[in-house]
């Protein structure tokens, strides 16, 4: 049978970001898929040579907008490891709370996009409506909706008051209720099952051997999640990964849906167990610079999250006073890092790994970032051959591709 080569992307109605696949098809069946990258490559890793190791926090936060907090967390944990810094326990819990809120809003974003990919627009809007509540928490507690910029070397630059914690718990409870109302639709609806069950199957062995990470790996039956390593406060929260076994698009979406609810539970648990104390520690290290450098000391006015019209949905309560005492957000970094470290955190899309090398100067010698989508592209290339052309958009979206992450 004659073969046709069909370009898929970089501009495609389903793709949120530019990935190009050269699909070789026979009739309506895909027989080969080859990727082309490079549309949004920014060379962010290279910037470590011109930005100092503190400024790199702001750079790595911009590797990916959706999981900016977790990039900064992974980077800061690496530098802290090199400099031998012990982060205060309260800061670890705060990192966990904001990290899990990021996972919730990322998964809700993806669930909406996924529903839209197979034409379920009302479901798309429902998920994004709930997501707004999480974005409001982020805006109210960090001053920004997406790039929250709370992590610093040695801790976090913001704290939560008891009033804020109580308000977050109320909001999270409402978000959970709203998400649970969508359970039967996303997991049991005929259209969803028809488009997802048995599509893009990645077997358990394939997932592991091809280096899949995150919901891709767990959707194929592997109970592996970087949160099991106990970074931030996960070691004290009794975390267990969510696993599905069918390895198809439905299993991957089920993992993400259930993880959304799990993350809300983790936020509540972290708030309940968060100890009192400092949110950042002063940092020493190698080098001859004795002048303490104050980072993150200047705080702009925190935006009020509820100054917009919220008449379209239930509001638990207006946010409490968001002012943070001056000085509470400052951490002093003295000295320079020298050495190497590898750190891992679990992004919404999967395991994120940083390799850091520092030579004792104010610049990092090397910042290497392995993002989850980069790891999930080879499994995608294995999933596509044999599928119907009409299923390609759903399968591609089921890896939750983030190309700005991938190319950095």
């Amino acid at each position, binding site marked *: 049978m004659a073969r046709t080569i069909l370009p898929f992307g970089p501009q495609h109605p389903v793709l949120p970001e530019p990935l190009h696949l050269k699909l070789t098809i026979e009739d309506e069946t895909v027989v080969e898929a080859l990727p082309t990258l490079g549309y949004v490559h920014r060379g962010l890793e290279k910037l470590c040579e011109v930005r100092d190791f503190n400024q790199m926090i702001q750079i790595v936060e911009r590797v990916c907008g959706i999981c900016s907090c977790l990039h900064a967390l992974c980077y800061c944990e690496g530098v802290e490891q090199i400099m031998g810094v012990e982060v205060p326990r309260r800061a670890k819990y705060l990192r966990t709370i904001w990290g899990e809120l990021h996972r919730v809003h990322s998964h809700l974003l993806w669930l909406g996009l996924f529903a839209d990919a197979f034409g379920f627009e009302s479901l798309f809007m429902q998920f994004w409506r709930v997501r707004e509540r999480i974005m409001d928490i982020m805006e109210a507690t960090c001053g920004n909706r997406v790039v929250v910029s709370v992590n610093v070397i040695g801790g976090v630059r913001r704290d939560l008051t008891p009033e804020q914690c109580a308000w977050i718990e109320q909001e999270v409870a409402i978000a959970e209720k709203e998400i649970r109302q969508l359970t039967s639709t996303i997991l049991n609806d005929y259209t969803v099952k028809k488009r997802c069950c048995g599509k893009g199957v990645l077997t358990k062995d394939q997932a592991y051997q091809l*280096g899949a990470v995150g919901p891709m790996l767990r959707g194929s039956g592997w109970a592996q999640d*970087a949160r099991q390593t106990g970074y931030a406060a996960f070691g004290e929260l009794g975390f267990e990964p969510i696993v599905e076994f069918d390895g198809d698009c439905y299993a991957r979406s089920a993992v993400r849906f259930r993880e959304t609810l799990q993350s809300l539970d983790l936020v509540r648990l972290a708030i309940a167990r968060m100890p009192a104390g400092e949110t950042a520690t002063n940092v020493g290290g190698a080098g001859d610079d004795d002048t303490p450098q104050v980072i993150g000391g200047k705080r702009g006015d925190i935006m009020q999250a509820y100054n917009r019209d919220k008449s379209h949905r239930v509001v638990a309560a207006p946010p409490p006073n968001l002012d943070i005492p001056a000085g509470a957000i400052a951490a002093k970094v003295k000295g320079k890092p020298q050495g*190497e470290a*590898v750190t891992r955190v679990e992004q919404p899309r999967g395991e994120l*790994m940083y390799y850091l090398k520092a030579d004792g100067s104010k610049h990092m010698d090397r910042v290497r970032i392995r993002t989850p989508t*980069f790891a999930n*592209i080879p*499994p995608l290339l294995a999933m596509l051959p044999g599928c119907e052309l009409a299923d390609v958009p759903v399968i591609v979206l089921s890896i939750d591709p983030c190309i700005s992450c991938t190319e950095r």
Partner: protein
Amino acid sequence: MLETIPLSLDQVAAVAKECFDDGWRQVTMSAVDCGEAGFEILYHYDKDLVMKHYRLSIPKETVVPSISPVYFCALLIENEIRDQFGICFSDIVLDFGGALYLEAEVRAMPFCKVSVAEKQS
């Protein structure tokens, strides 16, 4: 400090095969430009959330055996290193020829450091 296992050029493929057979997942590879000392490539593997790291030190212009015939997922990593550092890999299962991110006509290696070399007489 990061503990690494030294690796020689002729061990690269054999160690990858050994790791694959022992059930290690290939996490990624990290290339570092060490200036006149050449390049370092770190191979990161994971098994049950425990990582091990192999360190390969090579002079510049060395061709490194690809591990993509063993770990298919290494193909993108090796092509990326080729784009960024100009390190060539032999027998990659899918070779983009230095054009994964870059246009084909680009000859500069954007992640290499600028260094001064003594003029050859």
